[in-house]
């Protein structure tokens, strides 16, 4: 593999040697002066604004691709929730030439089908009651039309082309703030990625639209309606965020999903998917000069798109505890969240460190107290949710151990947070986390696909690919005073949202 890892090795070795087995409680934590690893990332910015991060590394002849679009469910409006995620699905349906034998004929049917859908939406929204006779008629009409358009569809051809060329892990993900498309290919196939990806950027066709919408509805039933944890999290976010779109899951509300129109999706695509809004990372065994030339050749002539509008909405200050209860056919669970600043704030690193002190390992404070000593919980986790660009929540999730109640678990969590003020984290507690962070700096370099995600996400979040590699260093600088101050500032009752899942009748 390349020399960058060995350069990093020297830094790690110095720290690891220094940090190994200090006398418990006696040593002052070391002052660390580590920087970003010297990764040979080549940046290519096309005239249309599209950005490429190219990181060659030796090893197996494979290349990981991640295309990052900084748009997610926070950009959605009420009534159209789930559109960012639905579009992610539709972008696997092909283009004007992939996935079809006659796109013009397909589009002709789309027009009729979409008109029927407009009628269906009117029937569903009729007041005072939906038009129950028209709804099945239009639903059936849409189904028949979509089936008739299928005569020209070559199903899953985008996937099939990549797969028969050895692709692995073809998929995509949509969060509150980003949509990411990823795949790995054998190194000699990289041009295929450029050809296919530029084609779907230029000429996407949202075929099999209404069938795929049903697929997304099934995805929601699996992840939310049929999942006690999913339902509780949805209730929790909805209670914590009354104005900010963090309050809605990226998959969207069921009634919104089932009303999304092709027109809306098309408009969304044009607003957010211009090349100027896309960053691509390639990591693996390839020649960066060739890749840069392909970037220009395939994507250079695509015109820049609109500049996406900024998100201005901010969650109003919380002025009192909020509690929400979900009754479901499942054993109890507990979620507690406190409003905290965004990932850009210095305190974000303090809070990440705090999560480690509380639940990072078997000897962390909450794990020890709840799971080991008092044995009133089966598990406990913590971290900042739901994402990072906007003020969010520091969340603690616990699963009570019967016969103990969620209230008993909640009480102990509050006691342990209060104890952080009276009995701040010791140098040893902090040292344990710091040493783990140091090793994590090496471990995060092991996977090409993992590195590609880190590069694009850092570029999108921080404006450069390097800053992500400084986050552990910034966490390592957090001291006990900062942790205590953060607890004092954020972990107050007025700033808190509590969600409890209960079985009916319990």
């Amino acid at each position, binding site marked *: 593999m390349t020399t960058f890892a060995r350069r990093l090795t020297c830094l790690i070795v110095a720290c690891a040697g220094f940090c190994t087995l200090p006398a418990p409680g006696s040593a002052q934590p070391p002052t660390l002066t580590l920087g970003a690893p010297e990764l040979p990332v080549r940046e290519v910015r096309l005239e249309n604004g599209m950005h490429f991060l190219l990181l060659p590394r030796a090893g197996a002849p494979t290349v990981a691709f991640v295309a990052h679009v900084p748009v997610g469910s926070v950009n959605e409006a009420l009534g159209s929730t789930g559109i960012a995620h639905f579009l992610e699905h539709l972008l696997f349906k092909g283009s004007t030439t992939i996935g079809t034998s006659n796109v013009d004929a397909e589009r002709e049917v789309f027009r009729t089908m979409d008109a029927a859908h407009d009628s269906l939406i009117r029937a569903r929204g009729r007041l005072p009651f939906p038009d129950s006779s028209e709804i099945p008629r239009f639903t059936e009409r849409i189904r028949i039309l979509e089936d008739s358009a299928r005569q020209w569809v070559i199903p899953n051809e985008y996937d099939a082309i990549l797969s028969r060329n050895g692709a692995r892990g073809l998929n995509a993900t949509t969060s509150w703030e980003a949509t990411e498309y990823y795949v790995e290919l054998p190194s000699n196939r990289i041009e295929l990625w450029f*050809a296919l990806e530029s084609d779907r950027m230029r000429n996407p066709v949202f075929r099999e639209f209404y069938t795929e919408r049903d697929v997304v509805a*099934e995805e929601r039933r699996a992840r939310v309606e049929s999942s006690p944890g999913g339902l509780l999290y949805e209730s929790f976010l909805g209670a914590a965020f009354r104005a900010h779109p963090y309050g809605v899951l990226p998959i969207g509300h069921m009634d919104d999903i089932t009303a999304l129109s092709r027109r809306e999706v098309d408009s969304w695509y044009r607003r957010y998917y211009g090349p100027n809004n896309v960053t691509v990372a390639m990591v693996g065994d390839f020649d960066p000069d060739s890749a840069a030339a392909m970037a220009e050749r395939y994507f250079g002539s695509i015109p820049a798109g609109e500049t996406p509008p900024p998100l201005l909405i901010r969650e109003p200050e919380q002025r009192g505890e909020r509690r929400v209860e979900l009754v479901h056919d499942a054993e109890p669970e507990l979620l507690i969240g406190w409003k905290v600043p965004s990932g850009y704030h210095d305190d974000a690193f303090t809070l990440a460190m705090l999560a480690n002190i509380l639940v990072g390992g078997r000897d962390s404070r909450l794990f020890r107290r709840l799971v080991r000593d008092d044995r009133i919980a089966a598990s406990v986790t913590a971290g900042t949710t739901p994402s990072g660009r906007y003020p969010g929540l520091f969340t603690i999730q616990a699963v009570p151990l019967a016969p103990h109640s969620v209230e008993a678990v909640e009480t102990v969590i509050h006691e342990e947070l209060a104890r952080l003020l009276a009995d701040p984290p010791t140098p040893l507690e902090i040292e344990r986390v710091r040493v783990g962070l140091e090793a994590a700096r090496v471990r995060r370099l092991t996977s090409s696909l993992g590195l590609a995600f880190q590069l694009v996400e850092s570029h999108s979040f921080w404006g450069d690919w390097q800053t992500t590699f400084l986050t552990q260093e910034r966490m390592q600088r957090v001291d006990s005073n900062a942790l205590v101050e953060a607890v004092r500032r954020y972990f107050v009752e007025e700033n808190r949202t509590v969600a409890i899942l209960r079985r009916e009748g319990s």
Partner: protein
Amino acid sequence: MVITALALAGWVMAASAPGPGGDAPSPPLPDTLPLSGRAVIERLTFPPLVFEPPVALEYEVGGVRVYHLHDPALPLVDLFVQLRGGVGHFPRREMAPITALPSLVRTGGTRELAPDSVDLRLDLLAAQLSVGSGGGGSFATLNALTTTFDESLALFREILLEPGFDREAVEVWRGQELERVRRREDDPGGLAYSEFNRLLFGDHPVGWVTTESDLAPELFTDERLRELHSRLFCRERIQIGVSGDLTWAEVEPRIRSFLAEWPSCSAPLPDPVHPQLREGPGVYILDKEVEQTTIILAQPGGLRQEDSEEYFASRIANHLLGASGFSSRLMTRIRSERGLAYGASSIWTTPARWEGLVGAVTSTRSDRTVETLSLILEILNDFRAAPPPEAEVERALEEIAMGWVFAFESAAQIVARRMSYRAQELPDNWLERYLEGIGEVTPGAVHSVVRERLRPAEMTILLVGDARQFGPGLEAFGPVYRMHPDGRIEPWERDPHPLRR
């Protein structure tokens, strides 16, 4: 890993095959493209992929087989200890203590060190250590920085060989398992898999479902745990893999020291019991008020993992039916064409020691349950009815051949694969043999294995969901039974709870 010249040549040939446009030479592409999509893709050709796959070498140290692959890319070392033998070799009453053993070895401290001290040392060494079970045995892994590997290895050895079985750790584990038992009905998907195993495997370790009585405190005495430990964590049962930033010259003395006091096994293990799989059609309903029904159906497949034409054909059949993602028959027809499910896949297991299962699994909205089940059976019957088109088989072969390079992405992966072959008593050259075998599969061979082994009419069908929403028609798939979460089965009563609202 040993790759013969033949297999490697075949792989390189496949990897350098022309792209979707065929093998005609294509004119060079202009600097900018007026065209896009199919016109461009069909003109692409790809250079050959030249790659010498790394090979994990096999050694013997103190009578123990050790596999090693040096990879200095990062200052990390992975050590993988595989222990053959587990739950499958013991009677039901030992199930929970055997299941607990790996976790208690990790969390119960050592004879000299309290659990807290072990955790503190691991944290300060930044070592990641896990002990678990799976695949009919147990395993222990260590991932450590090169600079702290020696101390980490010494602690790893102490944890594995001199467990403390701290009583508090035992009680924590029992409490967590009891909670898991209480919560097993919360997740309909997990419940469905667990109940389906119980239905098909019956009184066999795969079919056992943990109950409160399995977790009685008297089953976890220190004496019992130590006896089980002495039978499983012993020299004759282990093989070791090392990958990462140490050469064999550096590894060998460390492993020799690591193994020096590793005791012999106190007693042999009985042979694992082979399952008597349920045969014959039947629809089993586990009634649960959820919005989505989990559908699992399968029958005994009668095939093992072995070097035979039928086995290789079954791998391609599985690929086409439902193991190749979006392009598979199940996904294309259930998801892409009908929008009935988010995911659908085939089940075609081929264990090394007994015959596996063949079937399918998906989840769909409650009121489309019968429709979806009918569609799955139609897809299975279509698969039986005619040989797959040659292009479909060719595509599967290309996918497998072209993607083979991903089998060499990390040294740890290469070492673990070689160990896995040995544990399953497969030949060391199984990788190349597999590739050769797959490459020889024809549409006729696929059709033959499908006709012989895939029998939709004989499948056991499990539905976990809201029975009131299913609608009529289930009786067409076999006798209908109500299944209770405790495993009891009774005929489905038509009233007062009919299969329709």
